């Protein structure tokens, strides 16, 4: 078996048994990136020399009997996580020259546990998008192809499209993403892999370029639920540098994957059955419920009455926070600078040149909804609707242990689709946005293919800080679905 085809679990065992070296494992991935990345554009920056050094250090540690959980495991890091000495762009021109002199807490935790970083992955600019089309570093090609229309270039989803494409195409064993409205789960669904958005506060936001601070959730991607559990355990944990970081112990998520789900109550949120839902998405959802029932779970109908208001509320709150967070990019102390006639002109021309269209739109919306006279009508009302959405989940979870829903309203679409109308693109997050607003954990698991051979994910949503149940249910779905199809574009092929 090719080294790039391994799971993290199998690679960990192989490394510990010295069946192959960490250097060989990393080099196999770097060669795969060399071969396939010019086409996929999943990585913005490949840190070849640094990765080889990290792998050699892992080999020395392995030889000394070191058993850290990620020792020698090569990963893809979304270019939103600051990495010491490695350029971090957030997919934006405004950060094109930016090389952090510090490491984000999440990536520092992965390095502490022995991981190797292959490079920084492509993404929608400042994580604003559902297609990776807003990146200043070009679009990413989804490694999956339609059966009927194999020439069409599909998007990997977004915003964490580069990490998802890299993991799917075997250009990394796992990766990191961030989920603000669906940016881990939707690309995981589009690329046929597992993506986990943990509870708000589970993974530190320190050193992650801020988009919408009350909604940004770092989390892992991998090709199996168990691998995702291994990554999350390393990424998570209390961090004094993030005031919203939860000071509670991190459980053994890998152990939770093996839990029996007999007797669990799984809710079906009836408001997720939206008008115009594609038949095959509806059918897959029903199939998922059957699988869980067969595994011994009890299926219960629940109501989350404010679901349809989640996205409109999101598109007030997220741009409002973004307009504030992105005020720091003014061309004065770091990042891109455009010349101006005076200071104000320098600011305005720097931000016009440095931000792409989608980022500009959101900063403008955010500025408007926070401006004098409109704050109460938009921002305050959206925050009240957010309270109602959290209340829906709280009341729903009084009766069930987890919820099952589709991850996205469609399979991967073609590059260029949904680009004419911003609202059409925003609707990609219809099933993922509510869990971000409520801060509850949610995972996408590949569950089947559509008529055109493209992967579709199902989403498990859990109670706050009960990632363990999400992993247990996700693993049960994975076992039942037995999803073993590979994308058309694959390293080593």
């Amino acid at each position, binding site marked *: 078996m090719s080294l790039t085809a391994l799971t993290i679990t199998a690679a960990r065992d192989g490394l510990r048994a010295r069946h192959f070296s960490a250097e060989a494992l990393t080099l196999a991935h770097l060669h795969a990136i060399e071969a396939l990345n010019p086409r996929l554009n999943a990585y913005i920056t490949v840190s070849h020399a640094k990765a080889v050094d990290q792998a050699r250090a892992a080999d020395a540690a392995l030889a000394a009997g070191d058993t850290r959980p990620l020792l020698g495991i090569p990963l893809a890091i979304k270019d939103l996580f600051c990495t010491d000495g490695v350029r971090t762009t957030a997919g934006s021109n405004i950060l094109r020259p930016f090389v952090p002199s510090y490491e984000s807490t999440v990536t520092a935790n992965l390095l502490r546990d022995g991981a190797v970083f292959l490079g920084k992955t492509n993404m929608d600019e400042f994580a604003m998008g559902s297609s990776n089309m807003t990146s200043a570093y070009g679009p990413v090609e989804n490694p999956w192809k339609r059966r009927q229309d194999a020439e069409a270039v599909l998007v990997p989803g977004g915003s964490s499209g580069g990490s998802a494409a890299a993991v799917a195409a075997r250009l990394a064993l796992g990766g990191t993403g961030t989920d603000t409205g669906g940016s881990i789960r939707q690309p995981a669904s589009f690329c046929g892999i597992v993506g986990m958005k943990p509870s708000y506060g589970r993974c530190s936001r320190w050193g992650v370029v801020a988009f919408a601070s009350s909604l940004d959730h770092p989390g892992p991607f991998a090709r199996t639920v168990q691998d995702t559990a291994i990554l999350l355990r390393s990424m998570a944990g209390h961090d004094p540098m993030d005031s919203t970081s939860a000071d509670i112990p991190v459980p053994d998520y890998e152990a939770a994957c093996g839990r029996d789900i007999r007797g669990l109550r799984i809710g079906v949120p009836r408001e997720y059955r939206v008008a115009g839902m594609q038949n095959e998405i509806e059918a897959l959802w029903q199939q998922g419920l059957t699988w869980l029932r067969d595994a011994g779970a009890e299926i219960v109908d629940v109501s989350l009455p404010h679901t349809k208001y989640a996205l409109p509320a999101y598109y007030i709150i997220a741009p409002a926070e973004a307009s504030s967070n992105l005020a720091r990019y003014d061309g004065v102390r770091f990042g891109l600078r455009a010349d101006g006639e005076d200071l104000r002109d320098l600011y305005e021309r720097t931000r016009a040149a440095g931000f792409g269209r989608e980022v500009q739109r959101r900063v403008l919306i955010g500025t408007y909804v926070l401006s004098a006279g409109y704050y109460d009508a938009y921002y305050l009302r959206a925050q009240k609707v957010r309270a109602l959405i959290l209340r829906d989940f709280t009341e729903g979870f009084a009766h069930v242990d987890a919820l099952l829903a589709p991850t996205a309203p469609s399979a991967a679409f073609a590059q260029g689709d949904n680009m004419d109308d911003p609202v059409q693109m925003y609707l990609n997050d219809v099933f993922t946005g509510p869990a971000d607003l409520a*801060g509850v954990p949610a995972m996408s698991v590949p569950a089947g293919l559509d008529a055109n051979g493209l992967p579709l994910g199902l989403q498990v949503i859990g109670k706050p800080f009960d990632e363990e149940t999400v992993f247990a249910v996700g693993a049960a779905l994975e076992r039942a679905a037995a999803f073993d199809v590979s994308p058309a574009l694959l390293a080593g092929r």
Partner: protein
Amino acid sequence: MSLDPATVRRIAALARIHVEEADIPRLQAELNGILGWIEQLDEVNVDGIEPLTAAATMVLKMREDVVTDGGYPDKILANAPDRAGDFYAVPKVVE
């Protein structure tokens, strides 16, 4: 509420983003499309509901008000476009 061109210009000025006059109609249409969609929130009865600022229901931690970090000007200035000693050198910002 529908944005007119003057409001688009005012928002862009508040956001410190230079917008070419030729781009105003496109921006106006896009922003009005988004705001029109958002206005469905007006249907929701929010009487007596406290606004939620963040999903985390934790109490923010307090710590001693002491310096815990610093002492590395070269790292801080590593991304500065220009420097003078241990200071940022920037375009004239005071008229």
